[in-house]
């Protein structure tokens, strides 16, 4: 609120004008698209999971690993042929939230920066977008696991 107080009347007027002309995001439509595209990606993942359970003797618990790897392989192909970008424009979070979106972030950054060379370009920029996910995933997992381990050691739970 303090921000608003510092603005001149002209700036406030402009802000109102801006808000009037700003495009309203079609939240409902976006959510429905995200729902069915994201759901379908998970159905594909489920099919791959069953494939690994029945063909390669993985259990329900361990089949998640090869499934994730396969999904990332598929997202490499889709990203390389430019399909995933179009899917992303259509489905928003529906294509970003599944692990294929994580793969897409890594792979598209790798492809995009290859003109800068393999070491500084591809190597340096590969985790430009996905790095945040890894950082906060690892750090929060560390905190959570540490707390839980300490609680177990002290006999609290």
């Amino acid at each position, binding site marked *: 609120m303090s921000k608003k107080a510092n603005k001149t009347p002209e700036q406030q007027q402009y802000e109102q004008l801006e808000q009037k002309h700003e495009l309203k*995001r079609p939240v409902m439509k*976006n*959510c429905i698209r*995200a*729902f069915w*595209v*994201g*759901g*379908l*990606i*998970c*159905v*594909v*993942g*489920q099919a*791959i*999971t069953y494939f690994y359970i029945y063909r390669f003797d993985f259990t*329900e618990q361990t089949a*998640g*690993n*090869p499934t*994730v*790897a396969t*999904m*990332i392989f598929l997202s490499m192909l889709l990203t*390389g042929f*430019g399909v995933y970008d179009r899917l992303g424009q259509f*489905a*928003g*979070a*529906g294509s*970003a*939230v*599944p*692990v*294929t*979106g994580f*793969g897409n972030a*890594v*792979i598209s*950054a*790798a*492809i*995009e920066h290859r003109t800068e060379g*393999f070491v500084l370009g*591809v190597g340096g920029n590969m985790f430009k*977008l996905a790095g945040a*996910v890894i*950082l*906060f*995933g*690892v750090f*929060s*997992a*560390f905190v*959570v*696991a*540490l707390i839980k*381990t*300490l609680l177990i050691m002290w006999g609290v739970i």
Partner: protein
Amino acid sequence: MLPMFFWAFVIGGLFCVFGQILFDVFKLTPGHTLSLLVVMGAILDGLGLYEPLVDFAGAGATVPITSFGNSLVHGALQEAEQHGLVGVLTGMFEVTSSGISAAIIFGFIGALIFKPKG
């Protein structure tokens, strides 16, 4: 088998709707949204809530990025059970190694065979 596909669709879809709401209503960038979802997954697993969800919805819970946080915590806890506190560090990537290695390997292969567009 069929109900599993159904629940994978519904739960996986709901995760994506949650992400979409964070995009549209709370105006977060994709980076912020995905980071938040990963942290959520880690906390849910710490509370012991993610495992039942995986049993119930299969890929609907393992494919969204929240499962990344979940498997990080899982690996750390598994190892901590055997080796104590050090296990939290050494076991972190135990379960989730396939996702990270696949992303690195296929990312590099992708950069080798595909040319940037535009």
